[in-house]
């Protein structure tokens, strides 16, 4: 069954959503992300995608204390990302209670370091993040579109045992439906990888469709916060 992974994006300790990664277009959904996480847990959600948007922007982890609060007050399986660049960051994130580290820029800019981390912490504890626009990788908080194709890029990481979470920037926060075509091509091209869809999920049918394509998980943000997908609708996917 496809895994439902709600996202909590953090800016200044608040639970927010951006539109297409634009920090200027920010909606604050809650001042208390720990409460939001508890509500998820109470409905049977087991996993949480926690993003430090301040960290992603500055390249330095900022919202570590929120991670620690959520990890100590819930039993959610937490993947945390945004601003992880060094060995010290990895230690800090795991020590604060993250179960899985989400790695984006380092995997693009310093593949050797990323492979070292896989060797040290195991691939099961990593979530490879890739943001794309028209199949091209985006970096620096989506400010910069590279000329690197996602399918070429993933070749180096296609050894079994990695989860890939791929966001189509063009779709994120727009509630216009996910990039089914992109995910289908990823699932077919990398059958050994676990593909987690992210961006654009609008209603419960989108989730059924992503499951049919073969996605292992789906990250849901705005649709959940705006009530287009209710926690009740997600029940069949939870235990």
């Amino acid at each position, binding site marked *: 069954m496809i895994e439902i992974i709600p996202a909590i994006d953090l800016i200044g300790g608040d639970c927010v959503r951006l539109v297409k990664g634009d920090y200027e277009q920010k909606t604050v959904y809650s001042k208390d992300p720990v409460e939001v996480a508890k509500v998820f847990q109470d409905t049977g959600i087991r996993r949480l995608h926690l993003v430090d948007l301040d960290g992603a922007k500055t390249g330095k982890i900022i919202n570590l204390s929120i991670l620690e609060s959520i990890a*100590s007050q819930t*039993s*959610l399986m937490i993947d945390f990302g945004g601003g992880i660049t060094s060995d010290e960051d990895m230690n800090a994130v795991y020590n604060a209670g993250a179960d899985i580290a989400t790695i984006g820029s380092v995997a693009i800019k310093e593949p050797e370091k990323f492979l070292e981390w896989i060797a040290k912490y195991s691939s099961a504890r990593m979530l490879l993040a890739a943001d794309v626009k028209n199949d091209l990788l985006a970096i620096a908080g989506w400010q910069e579109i590279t000329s690197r194709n996602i399918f070429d890029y993933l070749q180096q990481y296609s050894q079994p045992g990695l989860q890939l979470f791929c966001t189509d920037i063009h779709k994120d926060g727009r509630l216009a439906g996910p990039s089914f075509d992109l995910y289908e091509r990823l699932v077919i091209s990398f059958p*050994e990888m676990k593909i987690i869809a992210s961006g654009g999920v609008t209603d419960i049918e989108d989730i059924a469709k992503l499951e049919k394509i073969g996605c292992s998980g789906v990250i849901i943000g705005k649709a959940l916060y705006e009530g287009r997908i209710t926690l009740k609708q997600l029940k069949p996917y939870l*235990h």
Partner: protein
Amino acid sequence: MNVAIINYNAGNTRSVFFALERLGIHSCITDDMKEIRSADKVILPGVGEAGSAMAYLKEKGLDILIKDLEQPVLGICLGMQLMCRYSEEGKTDCLNIFDLDVIKFTQPGKVPQIGWNTLYNMKGPLFAGIPEHSFMYFVHSYYIGISGDTISETQYATLFSSAFKKDNFYGVQFHPEKSGKSGEQIIKNFLTL
């Protein structure tokens, strides 16, 4: 009660610590021999990669100490795998408490297994009050086959040991600290052994 969580410096040891706190039990995360030896219960948590974890345990002399412990010891996820003879992960010689090998999942089934899965054929006090076919949360790419020590079975690509027991040593492949109420019950059961 005195609970020691063994630190092996490769990932998140605090999930278990937090879970115990939520049960009102204060534990210590430690690699200190004296602290571990004097604890009422010892937990070998489930994080990191087998090779680096074993290297750390050896460096601290804990590989020998753990095997000699007489109080109940619970290995979680990687902690369970480290109790085996050998792991394919990093081609690592492990603690050899269980004469079993840890093997990588092969197709069919994507690795890592992440998410809920079902427990069958649960045996013994660790599972007291846990209904048959309960769901637990798993995160792993390697597994241990079925043996005489198996006390619960789970299916993912193949049938594997989701828990085993030998004398005072218990291992669970899933994360009880991440498995809601049933998981919490398993931790409580371990603490009352």
